[in-house]
């Protein structure tokens, strides 16, 4: 819509006729800057006009373009978070570690050839032969190749499991906490049922039933998360119960904003640090669970992966045979590494959702920085002073 000149002018006239002088400026204490324009409509640099007579009817002369909206979106969701994370070593380290795993999982599989029994000599030690940098197993398979080729499926499994946990958990928690009443009772009952299902037996039973799909990492990830989301849902529900009584939620209800908006934009941002930390923890625990189950032999496997490697190494007596240590250590280091990366990322992502830190990093021109610092420090001073 272009400038709705006719609209605004007609209504302006009406208002002026009814005599509503802009005398409010005289009454309000001047907070800092100068209030110069009193009667005339000032034309702004960006083309809009500001009528002090009826700010209700102001419209812009410039139509919002698609580019504007995209730009605002990028600012909100990409540039600001990046600028926050850039300053935090934990974020950088976490990202570096995880990117390394992703690289291995995508590019690495093309660079390292798959291995097969009797590929090389038996139980070659690590760094002994550059054809097999991390050594070989007792059946002569390349340890590096096995570790590399199991990465993609582990990553996919981890991501799908973590996403399933937080999406289902947050949805159940937020909706039941906010809606209350019958909805709450129904959703909470479902949540309680899942909390009380013993996870391991369920996975064993399902793994047997779903044998055809279990080799798909997505199915496996979701299966491992089946029992994990309920705890998150409970915790989030209890937090939503307090947030729903906050004044700003009541205001939003009074203005008849949609429930979807209230849940996703008013309530959820307050939970995001918690949700993100839980997502990363879920990812970690899914890897641990998968590896443990592979090690125990509960899950059927067709291909090598870190858990299976551990199992094989253990069965070959790697715990007490120094010659086989590398076979055990490589998957252990791979698992610990990704866990450390996830933890570092979780710690740093907390900052992205803090409005105080966001404000300091947003790209709003030069004079913003000192203002932010003021307001920020002012608050902490007040806290310290107990006022």
């Amino acid at each position, binding site marked *: 819509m272009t400038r709705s000149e006719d609209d605004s002018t007609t209504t302006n006239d009406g208002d002026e006729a009814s005599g509503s002088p802009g005398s409010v400026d005289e009454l309000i*204490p001047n907070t800092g800057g100068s209030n110069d324009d009193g009667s005339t409509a000032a034309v702004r640099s960006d083309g809009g006009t500001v009528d002090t007579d009826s700010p209700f009817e102001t419209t812009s002369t410039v139509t919002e373009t698609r580019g504007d909206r995209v730009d605002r979106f990028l600012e909100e969701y990409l540039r600001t978070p990046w600028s926050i994370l850039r300053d935090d070593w934990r974020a950088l380290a976490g990202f570096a570690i995880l990117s390394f795993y992703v690289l291995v999982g995508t590019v690495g599989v093309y660079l390292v050839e798959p291995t097969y029994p009797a590929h090389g000599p038996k139980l070659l030690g690590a760094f002994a032969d550059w054809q097999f940098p991390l050594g070989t197993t007792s059946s002569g398979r390349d340890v590096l190749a096995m570790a590399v080729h199991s990465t993609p499926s582990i990553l996919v499994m981890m991501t799908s499991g973590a996403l399933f946990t937080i999406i289902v958990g947050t949805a159940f928690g937020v909706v039941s906490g906010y809606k209350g009443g019958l909805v709450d009772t129904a959703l909470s009952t479902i949540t309680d049922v899942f909390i009380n299902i013993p996870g391991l037996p369920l996975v064993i039973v399902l793994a047997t039933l779903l044998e055809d799909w279990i080799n798909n990492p997505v199915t496996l990830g979701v299966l491992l998360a089946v029992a994990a989301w309920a705890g998150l849902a409970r915790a989030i529900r209890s937090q939503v119960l307090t947030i729903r009584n906050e*004044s700003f939620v009541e205001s*939003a209800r009074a*203005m008849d904003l949609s429930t979807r908006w209230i849940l996703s934009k008013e309530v959820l941002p307050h939970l995001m640090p918690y949700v993100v930390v839980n997502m990363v923890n879920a990812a970690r625990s899914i890897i641990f669970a998968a590896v443990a189950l592979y090690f125990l032999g509960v899950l059927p496997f067709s291909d090598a992966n870190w858990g299976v490697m551990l199992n094989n190494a253990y069965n070959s007596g790697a715990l007490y045979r120094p010659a086989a240590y590398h076979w055990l250590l490589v998957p252990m280091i791979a698992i610990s590494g990704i866990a450390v990366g996830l933890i570092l990322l979780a710690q740093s992502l907390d900052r992205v959702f803090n409005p105080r830190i966001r404000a300091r990093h947003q790209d709003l021109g030069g004079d913003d920085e000192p203002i932010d610092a003021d307001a920020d420090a002012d608050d902490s001073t007040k806290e310290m002073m107990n006022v």
Partner: protein
Amino acid sequence: MTISESAATDRPSDDVIVELRDTSVEFGMERGQSRVLNEVTTEVYRDEILGVIGESGSGKSMFASAMLDAVPEPGVTTGEVIYHPEEGEPISVTDLSKDELRQFRWEEVSMVFQGAMSSFNPVLPIKTHFVETLSAHDYDIGRGLARAQELLSDLYLDPERMLNSYPHELSGGMKQRVLIALSLVLEPDLLVMDEPTAALDLLMQRSIVSLLEEIKEKHDLTIVFITHDLPLVADLADRLAVLYAFEFAEIGPSNRILEEPAHPYTRALLNATPNLSAPLEEMRPIAGESPDPVNIPEGCSYHPRCPLADEECETIDPGPYDAGPDHDVHCHHWEQSIEDLDIAFEETSDTGKTPSAVDKASGDPLVSLSDVEVTFGSANEGWLDFGESQTVTAVDGVSLDIYDNDVVVLVGESGCGKTTLAKTAVGLQTPTAGTIEYRGRDIWEGASGSTLADKEIRRALQIVHQDPGSALNSHHRVRTILEQPLKRWHPDLDGNDRRERILGMLEYVGISPPEDYIDRYPHQLSGGEQQRIALIRSMLVNPDLILADEAVSALDVSLRVGMMDLMIELQDVFDTSFLFISHDLSNARYIAEKTGGRIGVMYLGELVEVGSAKRIIEDPQHPYTKALRWATPELDAEQIGDSEESPMRSIDIPDPTDPPSGCRYHTRCPEAREVCATQTPGFVDLGDETHAQKSACFRAYDDHEYWQSASITDEHADSGVDTGGDTDSGVTSESD
């Protein structure tokens, strides 16, 4: 009062109990040193009550902490704090070791903080708190407890009941009084009270303040009373000290400060404080905001806001000038200030606005409440439900009409149901019984759950909350906060239109430059700015009625009048009605009188009196309104001093889960007679043609059996003692 006037003239120097020499408190901040107390030099005299007044963030809590060397880490206290005991050598408080400080703190100087709720350990009975304090200081427990009992009964509390109660069994006012007793049990000479009544109701505040005077006389105390509420201490304190920007602006005898304030800030503060007697034209806000502790202005710290400021003020820090006996002022122009200030103010602000005294009680009501009842909690529903039935009737049969362009202010103590009633009126609370009609339509018709079915009605009724900090979502920028109502109700506007409109509104309410503010987060705004954003947000949907729930009580005193003026202005411009809630009769009077609105007084879920501001303030009919009127402190120096007896028989509110029979006020009413306990009075119309005034009291009838009924007050004439916890204070006066 009289003591100070005679003693003020030539006070011997050995009468000083605490003196501060160039005392500063600093906090290291990321962006520099934050000075929250700036080279303060002052003295506190023995046996006086010193009232320290300052707005929030003026350093008044730091002043209290510095006196006890109790500044929290990482704050650093510099300068000297010297305590003069009655006998022996002066003690330099800042040089004391940790152990000595511990002794010093409760035995010589003790402190009462605000928020008595958190001062007690909830799992220990009150008695243990006393015993622990006594044994920590090696006092004789038996003698100490005897003293504690004496102190408790001095504070109109039943000692036995109090000592055996747990903190949660006591109401806020009781806890605060127990805390005062606890702080006095080691017989200190100096009592420092930091906002001791800030969390309490008006009536309770007033009652505690009048108790303090008795306690002080009986126990030979020196009291330093720190508060933001100037009228509250005005008639209690012998001397007043006004803190501004971390240093004293003025210090002197209270009647001099009130009558002839020498510092421009004191004068402005007096004018900015709403009260019951001053003409409305004299009330005006102070422009600008308090300075930041990191960048205290050069020279006189008040010069950016001062109408008298000149070059001298900008460069030279004014030392204390002697403005009369015992009256020091930190202003270069104090002599001129007394003469010229009012003229200067006339020039800078123009509040000559005539109230629109239209008779609003005509035509069809905009919102009409009839017999509204709201009950919380659940009744005992039989098996498996072993607890007692716990229902609280927050609003009990209230009828009220609000008209177009009307202003209604609800006043009452906390827990009287004023917020519940108001939220019911704007459709944010479902009534248990009764109807609410918007222009003749039942607003709950066809509603599911707690949302109104008719979206137009939903739009017409809006709310502005008490705490601006939580009214705005801390995760959204100002733009997002204000865009939402526009997106919902003006879907034809695109992003740039919305932006322009928001900028226009921001500028309209005096937030400038608006471009700078539109992308800020709420934490980057001051309290006053946040409250304005919240006000704009509800205005943007074009409502017919706005509920302002204590919308100014979270703001600094100096900003309140400005905020109320803005609301009144917006009401005029945008043709809305306002339903204000206030616990403070002086704020209520300001708004109602300026707009020609009405004041409604609520007590325990019932509306007891409704009338125009003038009638309610000048000629209250209901005894409860009279009590509220008594509890509202006056600034007028002439009226100070003759503080009459409390017009209530009991300080504490009866338990709302078991309200008294008949007239609910009869347990506290000084005029109560037997009939009051059995019959419920209805509304009596006392109004002449122009201003309707209604009161729910039998005394309004000329001819009623009340006048023949026997008084029930005599037998309990001195039954101010509270017998116990909330659970049965409903029968307080009977269980003497």
